[in-house]
């Protein structure tokens, strides 16, 4: 690339209109860059601050009532009958908790009504399995009627207890998902098995272990729920929380910045590896992350051989003529066909067409409950493979075309067959091009949501598509996806305002995934171009 030539003479007086237009063009570019930076910054800031342990502020109103919560926003507002000449007063949006007591999460406080505010060190922020967060002050910890700790000793006791409950919950989860899940799985298999004879014994055995396991789990659950923490809320009400239902508890106001940073990192990690709770509005995004990655992986497995084979045919084997030119244009254009069209095709062809046929042939015993005849991860991956195959074809072709003719001719001249030349010489040289295509395809697939909405994504999948039951990867299962998670939690949940920070965090994860892959692809492509720009001469 040559540096753009400067005007040969010293800048003369150019007409002002021309220069003005050039400035505007520069402004347009600046605006585009501002949009990119702004969006990335917006998502990064909102997504990352979701995990930050904010201060709990106690507001005491003029009338003596108290409100404990995080400060969510501040703004000037226009009260009714406000004198236009005066400055507008401030108000504070408090994000409270205790949904079961107050019913609302957010409240606007007029600053003029607030007598004083403070950040009491003993204010506790509790993250619960149900009902969202809890804010309050700890009174005592009890087991049944026995007081385990109270006063100053209550907080350390609670912290230790919560730690132990983590392990207890993990043990229950392991039982439920492991042994109990196995028994359930076996029972389901028995129900579907067509030969009834030898099953009865099996069935009885499984039924017995089902009962035994249920009892064990019930006992563990009782032990889990034995202890209670007794809180007092800011407005003076008493509230009893089962310790077994507490995920985390912390006193944010007494934390130093470094400690907050630790908690921030811990929460961020937990977000990535935890299951969602409260119909996706709390907890982590692990199933969605896993579903996205697995689906993209399956798609790449499908798309790479298909795309490379098609590109090889088009560039190396087909006779270059009008037909190939038309096909090339058509393939190129398929990359521009809306993704929803591929989704519609996937639904009609894969799900109802192929899936329905597979069900009739192999899963007839489960009908009318569809197995493959409904959306699933396999169909989603294949649909996206079709969607992205043009990208791979085009990039691979570009890579193949960039391999200089001389290299090929050299190989042929040495006596290699066409296959040998292609396999040993051309393909290795074109590998970066192929890789670029694959990465671009993956990036596109990871961010694509619309076609998946109709071929297999669900709000809440009961099980991951991979587990320890044969055949381990269940291609017929529905799956969760980061993109759909954003849409669903952001637009379909009852309390959009409260879930927005979580959506920002999810969007950030998706964005990091997609942008990282795109950056890698862009770099690869640039290196490829440089390499051939120099070697082709």
């Amino acid at each position: 690339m040559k540096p753009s030539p400067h005007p040969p003479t010293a800048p003369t007086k150019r007409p002002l209109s021309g220069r003005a237009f050039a400035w505007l063009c520069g402004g347009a570019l600046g605006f585009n860059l501002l949009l990119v930076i702004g969006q990335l910054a917006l998502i990064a800031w909102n997504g990352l601050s979701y995990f930050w342990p904010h201060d709990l502020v106690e507001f005491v109103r003029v009338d003596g009532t108290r409100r404990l919560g995080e400060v969510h926003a501040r703004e000037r507002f226009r009260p009714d009958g406000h004198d236009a000449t005066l400055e507008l007063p401030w108000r504070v949006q408090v994000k409270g908790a205790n949904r079961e007591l107050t019913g609302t999460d957010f409240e606007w406080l007029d600053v003029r009504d607030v007598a004083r505010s403070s950040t009491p060190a003993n204010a506790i922020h509790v993250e619960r399995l149900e009902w969202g967060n809890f804010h309050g002050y700890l009174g005592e910890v009890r087991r049944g009627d026995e007081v385990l700790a109270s006063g100053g000793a209550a907080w350390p006791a609670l912290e230790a207890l919560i730690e132990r409950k983590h392990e207890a919950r993990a043990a229950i989860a392991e039982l439920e998902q492991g042994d109990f899940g196995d028994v359930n799985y076996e029972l389901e298999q028995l129900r579907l098995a067509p030969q009834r004879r030898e099953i009865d014994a099996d069935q009885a055995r499984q039924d017995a272990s089902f009962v035994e396991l249920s009892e064990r789990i019930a006992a563990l659950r009782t032990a889990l729920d034995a202890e209670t923490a007794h809180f007092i809320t800011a407005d003076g009400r008493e509230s009893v929380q089962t310790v077994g239902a507490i995920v985390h508890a912390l006193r944010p106001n007494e934390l130093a910045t470094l400690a907050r940073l630790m908690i921030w990192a811990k929460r961020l990690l937990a977000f990535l590896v935890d299951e969602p709770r409260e119909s996706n509005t709390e907890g982590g995004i692990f199933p969605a992350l896993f579903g996205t990655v697995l689906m993209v992986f399956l798609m790449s497995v499908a798309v790479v051989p298909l795309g490379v084979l098609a590109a090889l045919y088009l560039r190396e084997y087909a006779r270059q003529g009008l037909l190939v030119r038309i096909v090339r244009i058509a393939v190129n254009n398929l990359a521009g066909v809306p993704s929803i069209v591929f989704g519609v095709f996937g639904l009609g062809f894969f799900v109802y067409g192929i899936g329905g046929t597979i069900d009739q042939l192999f899963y007839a015993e489960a009908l009318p409950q569809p197995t493959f005849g409904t959306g699933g991860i396999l169909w989603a991956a294949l649909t996206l493979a079709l969607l992205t195959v043009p990208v791979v074809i085009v990039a691979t072709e570009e890579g193949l075309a960039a391999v200089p003719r001389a290299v090929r001719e050299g190989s042929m001249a040495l006596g290699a067959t066409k296959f040998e030349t292609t396999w040993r010489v051309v393909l290795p040289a074109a590998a970066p091009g192929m890789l670029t295509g694959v990465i671009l395809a993956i990036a596109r697939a990871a961010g694509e949501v619309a076609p998946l909405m109709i071929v297999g994504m669900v709000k809440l999948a009961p099980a991951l598509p991979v587990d320890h039951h044969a055949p381990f990867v269940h291609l017929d299962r529905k799956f969760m996806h980061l993109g759909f998670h954003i849409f669903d939690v952001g637009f379909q949940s009852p309390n959009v305002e409260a879930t927005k920070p979580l959506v920002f965090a999810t969007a950030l994860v998706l964005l990091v995934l997609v942008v990282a892959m795109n950056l890698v692809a862009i770099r690869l492509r640039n290196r490829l171009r440089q390499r051939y720009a120099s070697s082709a001469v």
Partner: protein
Amino acid sequence: MTMDGPPDAPQKSASATALSRLTRRRRQDAAARVIVTCGGGAIIASVLGILLFLVAEVIPLLQSTQVESSAPIAAPSSVPLAALGDEGGTHVVLLGADGIARAIRRRDGAVVAEQALFGTSDDDAITATFTCGSALFGDYGFVAGSADGRAASVAIRFEQQFTDGVSTISVRIESPIEFVVDPDGGPVSACAASARQLSTAIVAARADGALVLVESAVEQNLFTGERTIKNSNRKLPSAAPVRTLALDGRRENVFGATADGCLLWWNLLDSENADPRVTVVGAPITALALLLGDQTLVVGQDDGSLTSWNRLQRGGGRLQLVRTHDFPRMRSAVVRLAPSWRDRTFGALAADGTLRLCYATTTRVLWEGAAPIQDITALALAPKNDGVLLANAGTIQPLRVQSRHPEAGLGAFFGKVWYEGYPKPEHIWQSSSGSNEAESKFGLTPLLFGTLKATLFSLLFAVPLALMSAMYTSQFMHWKLKRWVKPAVELMASLPSVVLGFLAGLWLAPRIAEFFIVVPLFFVAGPLSVLLAGWLGDRLPSRLRHRFPDGTAALGSIGVLALALTFTITLARPLESACFGGDFLSWMRDSLGIAYDQKNCVVLGLAMGIAVIPVIFAIAEDAFSNVPRSLVSASLALGADRWYTVTRVVVPTASPGLFSAVMIGFGRAVGETMIVVMASGNTPVMDWSLFNGLRSLSANIATEIPEAPEGSTFYRTLFLAALLLFAVTFVANTAAELVRQHLRQKYARL
């Protein structure tokens, strides 16, 4: 790139090994050729097969209705007044003019059940002659009026029985309900009935013109099983003798027709006015039928005209019968009409033996042809819409009908359609209906309109920004800067649209609604501030200016624009207070009458613009950069300045490439789905206001296709929408690609 070195082949027996190796290599080569050719060809074919699949799913929508005659069945010789068939098509029941309902098995023509309609309740077993009779609607049964002033209705039950795994249908004709219409024994000129579980309503017309409405409810004692019949009578006045009658299922409306061409409508809910409302239609009315949903009344006349009527509010809010649809005129008088139980299809039979199947909502004639038998007196559509029954004295002629999507058609998709309950024909998309009785409205026009509107607004925003920045990047920017700027803009392309949609719908939309005035303000202040900064930059000492590479100004303008944005936001509140009474949007609503939805085209245009900008930018930048250097150098050498060269040399040369950039951007915008789903409000309205929402084809498919049953009209209509999207984007992209290739060849010659 490593290659196997030439093998140090041993000299001995070389020829044999070498030969076999050569053969193997040749085979390998041939095999690879076959695999790649077949595999690659197959992949490309199957990718292109998407189009074929979509077309194959859509074609049944436009297929015409097929009608075939089945073998005729011998029937009793009495003249049939009405006929009906069961769902499975195993039996036909005829109501003969001799007063007997007979069930005939289609397989062998045997009469399996018989029931006289009169003379069962009392002893005088007179075989009355019938003057009129018809089949009930929505339930199996007949109603008939006799020459001696009586009317009766009878219910028919088809019962399925399993014996040894074989299902057989048996027919039971229940005992009729009979009452006296005219105590003087005058003939009943017309009758109609509606049956609803245990209650039956019959309306019958006497020769003197008066109408009698009888509702009889059968009450069954739970313990004894004893049935008591309760009758209630009501008289309806009429000026002239009524020839045909129709009664709706809710028993709220009675329609009648007189011989002099008047259409009468009694509103039974109207307690003040018992008299019918009279509409003069013209030629004598020969047939009447209410269609499914009891809204549309089809009227057949003596001169062959076929129209449908609806009760609509006209001037002064009064309900009136309004002619809503005109069907093509039949060649002779319409003698029989038969409605479908499933949809708005109806059959019409003319005096000359022409049979026609019509779809009422779209006035589409599904099929027309000569009936295979003569002197037909009874016409019925099969309950599942899969057949027609014709009967005359002595023969029953069943027809098999294949009409899978009668409600489809180009008129239904793209034209204005007069739906039931609407005051005038309109473009409407309303796929989901609560019940079978409501029509689905498959007008794609509002969705096409929404797609175009969203595309237009996003391109209005994106095209200038993208082209200007592409021009700046390629012509005014130093290559070192360009290396960073291009990937940055391309990064914009990788933002998933679901993230953009989320930002637009949940972050941007409420903020714009709050500070709407910032949008127009920034539209002015942004460019102005850039100009100002440029002018100031020009005043800088040239030594300082030349320290930065060309194009640094663009980076500087980021800061300038950010400042301008902050400035306008700060300015917004005071300006609103000063000029617009505190709130711009309520001022707009009150003074200009413009309603503002939070999710509107401004938000949508911005968000989709952001999605489209990088696409256009990438191609436009290519087009600008590919303008041969020699042209630019020549222009500069001739003394033109930089700007003159750009506008007079670079832009014209690159213009086909710019066109293709815009076309590709257009294709991207047309198909954008998630942003529209999340930021448009999804309301299928049709107007050009900037401040309301829309629904696009793509968003509509994404939200509705999971609910569409496979193979239904709804499902295929969504496939048609997908096909339209495919076609539009494919054409746009092909045009762009052809232009680009042409351009590349041209440059190669330069």
